[in-house]
């Protein structure tokens, strides 16, 4: 399928929202740091405007400023105007703005689990929008809530109405958020990374739902995202933000074909291609990690309770050779992280064997395992939480080697060298994690793993929390380390684009089982299993080569 950008001309349509030279500063006094600098954008009836940029560029601040939700004691608007229809929002009282929230403008957020009140039934949470705006009697509200729940295609609405958020899936929760945002048919819908936390197939459904409802209600949508794939599928207009400024605004197709600003070009360049890289020559050395028929079954229940067994992973077999990268891809709940944790022996497998080098580590006791631990190391997803915030970088880096008998001064020397290898200055040793950006922290986490001189690194969604340009750098770093040190990498990811760029071989998992296993080229270009095909079809912007600014030729996609 070729990429088809939206090309509707919105010039004749009415303006729904007009932001004009909006400036926002930190702090309550004059002269705070300017975090939004003359931001201007207009969205017309039925138009979808995408606001793209990396973390810290001011995307979310812009949306919160529109909603009047900036924290009043920390951030203030210094100049500019925001007009919603005929209303100048910045001149209105807090009470008037509150009355417009949820009715004339509404918002959906990234993480539907945390954005819903965990102790309130979701039906009541939607009904609360009506209640807050004094609409309808209790029974009338209930009827309208059930009606909007049907519109967002929730199943069994009566039951869902009475459910709590934790009883619903991620996609269902996001549908609840959308129902909540659209029940009063607002003129403007702001969607702040609404699909980032969702699986690709769910993402596809949610994006489809938003555009369907947009057509029905004529809503103007401000869609905030960092995912260029999503942008290429839904945007009429794209605004690229960087450091609080809009650096480029253009209709979607023009922006993707002929980006003008250097930053836009850099952003597009960094989008990993879905097309696998050139295969590397076969590796013939014996495997460093050999997993056979691995299984993990969780048992629950017991006394006075029904006995339940949940098979989180079942019959997983693979080999990983030195210097190679094996990707495990799948959606949440597919069992990919379970496999990673079993291999690390962070949890105990219930079936199968794991051989690390020449040793069977499947049933080793914690004491016996300890001496083998250095050989297999892990890098976690969230660099903000995987480094101890109260310890200096040097302590985190030398702890492992010292535990394995390296003298302290040599460990420090190694840490210093490693920091330079991962591209950080050696004086970073004496800093704390909060002094670094997300990308830098992930480099530190990688340095920590490498400091143990492992044979295998397990990277569990190690680049998923990073901006694309940083993601690109970290992937290159992993590749360089692998080339220089011959480390084998087990790369767990939900992102097929990332998998295509770093993996030699790929395993696709669904419901705890391996559904496809082959070279990256075979699996991603000519998938055999229906689930793999569905995953690839759902990857947004798959027909477009972002770096080159053109369609991917048909013979390459081979869909």
């Amino acid at each position: 399928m070729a990429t088809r950008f939206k090309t509707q001309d919105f010039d004749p349509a009415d303006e729904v929202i007009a932001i004009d030279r909006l400036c926002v500063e930190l702090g309550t006094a004059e002269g705070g740091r300017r975090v939004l600098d003359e931001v201007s954008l207009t969205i017309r009836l039925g138009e979808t405007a995408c606001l793209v940029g990396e973390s810290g560029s001011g995307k979310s601040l812009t949306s919160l400023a529109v909603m009047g939700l900036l924290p009043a004691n920390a951030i203030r608007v210094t100049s500019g105007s925001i007009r919603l229809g005929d209303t100048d929002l910045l001149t209105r009282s807090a009470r008037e703005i509150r009355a417009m929230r949820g009715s004339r403008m509404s918002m959906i957020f990234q993480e539907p689990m945390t954005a819903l009140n965990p102790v309130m039934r979701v039906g009541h949470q939607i009904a609360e929008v009506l209640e807050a705006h004094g609409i309808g009697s209790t029974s009338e509200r209930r009827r309208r809530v059930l009606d909007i729940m049907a519109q967002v295609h929730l199943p069994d609405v009566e039951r869902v109405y009475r459910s709590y958020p934790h009883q619903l899936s991620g996609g269902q929760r996001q549908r609840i958020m959308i129902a909540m945002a659209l029940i009063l048919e607002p003129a403007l819908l702001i969607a702040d990374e609404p699909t980032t936390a969702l699986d690709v197939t769910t993402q596809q459904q949610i994006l489809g739902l938003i555009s369907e409802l947009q057509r029905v209600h004529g809503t103007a949508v401000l869609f905030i995202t960092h995912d260029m794939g999503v942008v290429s599928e839904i945007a009429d207009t794209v605004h690229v933000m960087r450091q609080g400024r809009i650096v480029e605004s253009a209709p979607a197709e023009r922006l993707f074909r002929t980006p003008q600003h250097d930053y836009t070009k850099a952003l597009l360049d960094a989008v990993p291609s879905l097309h696998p890289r050139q295969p590397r020559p076969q590796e013939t050395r014996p495997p460093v990690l050999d997993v056979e028929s691995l299984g993990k079954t969780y048992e629950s229940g017991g006394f006075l309770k029904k006995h339940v067994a949940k098979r989180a992973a079942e019959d997983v077999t693979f080999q990983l050779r030195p210097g190679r990268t094996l990707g495990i891809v799948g959606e949440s709940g597919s069992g990919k992280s379970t496999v990673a944790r079993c291999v690390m022996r962070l949890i105990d497998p219930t079936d199968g064997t794991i051989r690390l080098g020449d040793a069977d580590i499947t049933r080793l006791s914690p004491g016996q395992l300890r001496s083998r631990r250095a050989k297999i190391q892990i890098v976690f997803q969230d660099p903000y939480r995987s480094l101890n915030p109260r310890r200096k970088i040097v302590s985190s880096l030398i702890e492992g080697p010292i535990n394995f008998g390296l003298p302290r001064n040599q460990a420090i020397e190694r840490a210093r060298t490693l920091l330079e290898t991962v591209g950080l200055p050696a004086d970073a040793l004496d800093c704390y994690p909060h002094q670094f950006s997300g990308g830098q922290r992930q480099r530190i986490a990688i340095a920590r793993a490498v400091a143990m001189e492992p044979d295998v690194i397990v990277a569990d969604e190690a680049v998923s929390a990073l901006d694309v340009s940083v993601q690109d750098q970290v992937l290159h770093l992993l590749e360089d380390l692998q080339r220089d040190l011959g480390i084998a990498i087990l790369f767990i990811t939900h992102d097929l684009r990332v998998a295509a760029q770093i993996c030699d071989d790929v395993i696709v998992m669904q419901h705890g089982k391996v559904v496809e296993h082959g070279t990256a080229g075979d699996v991603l270009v000519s998938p055999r299993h229906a689930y793999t095909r569905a995953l690839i079809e759902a990857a947004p912007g798959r027909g477009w080569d972002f770096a080159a600014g053109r369609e991917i030729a048909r013979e390459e996609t081979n869909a």
Partner: protein
Amino acid sequence: MLGYIVKRILAVIPVMAIVALIVFLILRLTPGDPAAIIAGDTATPDQIASLRESMGLNEPIYVQFFQWIGQLLHGDLGTSLLSGTSVNALIADRIWPTLNIALLSIVMSVAIAVPLGTLAAWRHGRFGDHVVMAISVAGFSVPAFVVGYVLIKVFAADLRWLPVQGYRAPSQGMGEFLRHAILPAMTLTAAYVALTARMTRASLLNVLGEDYIRTAHAKGVKDVTVLLRHGLRNAAVPILTVVGTGFAMLLSGVVVVESVFNIPGIGRLTIDAVMARDYPVIQGMILLTSGIYVLVNLLIDIAYTVFDPRIRY
């Protein structure tokens, strides 16, 4: 859920059995012959020997234990050495004043502390917050007997609104009960108001930083509603923990207050028993207090599920 409650109640059995064993052993393993201690300094060896016989102290220790447990299972806590009446009767007589005052204290401390803590969280970093925090530091720092005497001085001696001391049961009229119970309850409450208010503030501040609070604002919900409906209920679990353990701790704090206000409760019963080495009464009191601890903890665990539907046992 029902299965969980049954399981928890069954789990009480081993806990109480261990408590009983410890209570039994403390008495038997303390140096000195209980019979000699009970008989007093002037007793002759013959008198002590016959006392030993009548107390069953000549039996092997495990036989003594099972005899005692057998009694306990019949609900018989033994007989007070001091007064000769049964321990059951003594406790039944004294438990109500203590329980009534403890309950009143808890109700008062929740009624005062939760609004104060909510106010502090709402006005975080501003004047109202500082005032509430100052009050709670004071509540923590001043000992109960000082609070008690100051309250007596002001409300009983100077203003003459309330009686200086004494106790009336609610059955003698709710008004009279409250007139007598309000000062002791306030004395007991001071520290718990401080504790609960701080916990409410901390828990609520945590919750107010959550995403769903932002969602509620984005829906156009009024600030007060956001605070109470979305904030407070999510903040409830830690508050509940403090209130529950507070109730159990009140029962020990009650000793001082019962002395200050001359209330015939179990606090004074315990002190008198300790002074007179009235072992059966002491044993009974330890068992009773641990029983109440276990029961209150069970009730708290069940209450969690009411406030947070995610907690399922």
